[in-house]
């Protein structure tokens, strides 16, 4: 028997086929059931609540309120303005930076890439808190420096972070890495021949860039801008920290405020639906834009692109890159370090203000720290392991078309991408605070939320890894008599090793940063680190926040590094993009 050219599994004898069908049908049903419980159930309840009033009668009243009450319409507009601005800024910043890193001989290119990864590990709400320490109009460290340098009076500020512009800036800081990675990866893979041809025909560097590189990269750039838009649309932590003191709500903070006592879940559900709808529409647009084009690995026929020589502009380019990276990384981390070891957050560390009191308080006095750390790591490892296995199973089934109905699985596995974190939190809350499955108050509901949120990205990563593993190897194993499971374990598994580790790390990091779903679903027994930090922020304990944030980031980095070492060598982690936070 020879394998068919299009890679389909060879036809088996009827006895074997019966055996195949016997175990594959239950597996399909089991996986679909799991996905249904995780996704369809919460979204179903969300719809039910959105279209019902307090007594349970069907009504459109919630939507009428939503679109006529200014306390809802204003946040909607604010959210749209923020998202569009963030998308534009990220595009404008990430594109040149990506081009510099991928296409020129700028020094420190590798360092810049690593630093961009580091800013992905930083949760956006931690960044927002750090920027508060830097740019609060009166007590912010940057403003204090500026005043002492320029001699301006005490109530003048260089930057006021408690404004719409301030919020847009902070969100853009932690969203631009997504766009950067997309653009840099695309430019990495672009064939160099077209640019070579252009320069051979006499075009100068800038002309080539403008007329060849940019049009080729444009779809990717637009897709990246869409991702940035979606990120900004669905972010909860940063607006909660910066918008509310400034006196305005975004849609996500408004949804959350509807959960404060007395809770109005109908209005919260109704407010969540526009977010959901907009996200779905934009994702379809993104898919259409990338469509047939995109990242097909182009094989060995094309040569590596030739790096453009910057000449005298090498150092300024590197300086520019580092300046950009100062915004999400150097400045905020410096502020966190300062606050962690300073008596009062608004004072620079000096001999009289240096103190270890915050560290002592966080670890020896704050009774919520250890439980939160335990919960977080337990949930992160469980979600990474279980979610990774689920994603692996689904990716295998879809890539090998092992079961009829695999397209449904593929759809369900990527569906959560369209659900903003806080919307998922609301849906899960509505679904699981009622019998028979009252999971509210346990770690299980958080586990479900985290796995659901991270599943699409994990599935996409493993899916593309599967595409790189040719079925011939598995078919050889099958022909020699191994079952599917054995083949998966002995042949496919080891080949996927580094992709599996990368996926595990990605889920792990994503869970630790997750706030918008956790803030709706936690109880005092099931607090996680992100919620603890958010709680501390509401009572103004910035010292403890700084210590916890630094610990969170350090531990995350440690785990990722360890996992990569276990996986054997560095692998360029092609991070798929997911709306998180």
């Amino acid at each position: 028997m020879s394998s068919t050219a299009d890679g389909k599994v060879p036809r088996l004898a009827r006895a074997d086929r019966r055996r195949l069908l016997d175990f594959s049908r239950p597996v399909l049903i089991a996986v679909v059931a799991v996905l249904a419980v995780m996704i369809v159930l919460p979204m179903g309840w969300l719809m039910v609540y959105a279209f019902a009033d307090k007594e349970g009668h069907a009504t459109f009243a919630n939507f009428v309120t939503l679109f006529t009450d200014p306390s809802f319409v204003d946040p909607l507009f604010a959210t749209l303005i923020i998202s569009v601005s963030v998308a534009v800024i990220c595009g404008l910043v990430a594109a040149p930076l990506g081009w510099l890193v991928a296409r020129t001989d700028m020094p420190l290119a590798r360092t810049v890439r690593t630093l961009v990864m580091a800013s992905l590990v930083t949760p956006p709400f931690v960044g927002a808190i750090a920027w508060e320490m830097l740019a609060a109009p009166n007590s912010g460290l940057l403003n204090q420096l500026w005043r002492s340098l320029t001699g301006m009076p005490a109530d003048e500020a260089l930057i006021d972070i408690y404004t719409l512009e301030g919020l847009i800036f902070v969100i853009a800081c932690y969203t631009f890495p997504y766009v950067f990675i997309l653009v840099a990866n695309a430019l990495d893979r672009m064939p160099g021949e077209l640019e070579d041809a252009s320069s051979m025909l006499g075009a100068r560097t800038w002309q080539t860039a403008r007329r060849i590189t940019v049009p080729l990269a444009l779809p990717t750039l637009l897709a990246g801008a869409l991702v940035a838009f979606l990120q900004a649309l669905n972010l909860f932590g940063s607006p909660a920290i910066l918008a509310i003191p400034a006196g305005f709500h975004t849609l996500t903070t408004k949804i959350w405020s509807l959960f404060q006592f007395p809770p109005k879940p109908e209005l919260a559900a109704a407010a969540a639906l526009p977010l959901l709808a907009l996200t779905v529409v934009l994702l379809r647009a993104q898919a259409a834009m990338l469509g047939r084009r995109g990242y097909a690995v182009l094989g060995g026929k094309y040569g590596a692109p030739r790096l453009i020589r910057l000449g005298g502009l090498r150092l300024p380019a590197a300086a520019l890159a580092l300046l950009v990276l100062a915004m999400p990384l150097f400045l905020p981390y410096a502020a966190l370090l300062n606050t962690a070891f300073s008596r009062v957050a608004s004072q620079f560390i000096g001999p009289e203000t240096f103190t270890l009191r915050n560290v002592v308080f966080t670890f020896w006095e704050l009774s919520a720290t250890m439980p939160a750390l335990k919960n977080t790591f337990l949930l992160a490892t469980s979600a990474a392991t279980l979610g990774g296995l689920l994603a692996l199973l689904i990716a295998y089934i879809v890539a090998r078309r092992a079961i009829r109905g695999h397209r449904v699985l593929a759809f369900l596995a990527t569906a959560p991408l369209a659900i903003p974190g806080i919307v998922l939190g609301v849906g899960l809350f509505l679904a699981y605070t009622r019998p028979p499955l009252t999971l509210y108050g346990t770690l299980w509901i958080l586990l479900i939320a985290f796995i659901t949120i991270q599943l699409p990205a994990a599935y996409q990563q493993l899916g593309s890894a599967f595409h790189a593993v040719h079925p011939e190897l598995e078919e050889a194993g099958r022909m020699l008599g191994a079952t599917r499971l054995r083949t998966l374990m002995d042949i496919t598994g080891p080949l996927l090793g580094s992709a599996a580790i990368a996926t595990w790390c990605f889920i792990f990091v994503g869970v630790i940063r997750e706030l918008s779903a956790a803030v709706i679903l936690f109880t005092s027994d099931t607090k996680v680190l992100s919620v603890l930090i958010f709680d501390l922020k509401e009572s103004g304990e910035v010292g403890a926040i700084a210590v916890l944030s630094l610990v969170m980031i350090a531990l995350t980095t440690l785990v990722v590094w360890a996992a990569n070492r276990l996986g054997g060598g560095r692998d360029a982690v092609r991070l798929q993009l997911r709306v998180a936070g």
Partner: protein
Amino acid sequence: MTKKLTRRRVLAATAAVTAAGSFVTPVRGAPPEAQKITAELIAAAKKEGKVTWYTSVDLPLAEKVGKAFEAKFPGVGMKVERSGAERNFQRIGQEYASKIYICDVVNSSDAAHLIVWKRAGLLAPYLPEDVARHFPETQKDPDGMYASWRVTLCPIGYNTKLLKPEEAPKSYADLLDSKWLGKIVKAHPGYSGTIMTATQQLSRDLGWAWFEKLAKQKVMQVQSAAEPPKKVAQGERAVMADGTEYLDYELKARGEPIELVYASEGTPLITGPSAVMVRAPNPNAARLFYAWSMTAEAQQQLNVDLGALRSAHRQVKDRAGMRKFADIKTLREEANVVADEADEIKARYVKLFKV
């Protein structure tokens, strides 16, 4: 024409009849017996091994109280769950509705919560000896369901590095002056019980018109009543319109540049009662902690000397360096009114301040 018998009218009538006390609830039979802290209670508490305390007092102080309790009764671990009183209220409501029982002892800076919980049957009656003997009638529930664990005020404050004492505002009316535009920080009644209580008192005595004008002052809106003192000490804003008195004194004692002002119209009075929950998972540990926290020793050393709170316990003296309670003009506290009007107050506030 018969008047409709609304809940509001009944309560108004009851309030008019009862003496000027904070706690107006229907008396159900005789109050329970006063209980001592016995060796059996301590042993039973140690067997249970832990107690969970929901409170809204400032976090470092709450943790210190917890550690002191653990030191006094080794073997009983204390878990502090600190958030704003309104948040805790929501959480307890949500937890009990989902049949999740975590909280053993609850303390709230919004006395109305205790009234609502008592009506809903969420509290267990328990009357420690100290409360029976040394607490005035207005500071405890006649049925023994709760008692004031702490008393504090909600004054105005300012940063002494940014303002001289003559320049500082002296009254709530002063805060409406345009020179304070963008210079005020204030906390939120949707999060903080202290601020909810203060908002009801100020809206009653100064009217909502005052809030309307304050909303135009580009106030920095924070959540917890513990935050304005910190923000003022940091220099982020020059003036706080509300905030907890005890934190002001605590920061002053640490050398931070903050000073209080007791407004000429009167300062809102905040009692923070505590109670044992009816479905406490550790009932003996709960009672032990509750009773111990009301003793003269605990109140004096922790609440007053360490925390700069004030106490309802008659044997406890005011902290040196703090203005004597009797010398301060306070506003009248009406927890029963807050119990009824909390939602309206919140809604009105959000409408004015937009968040």
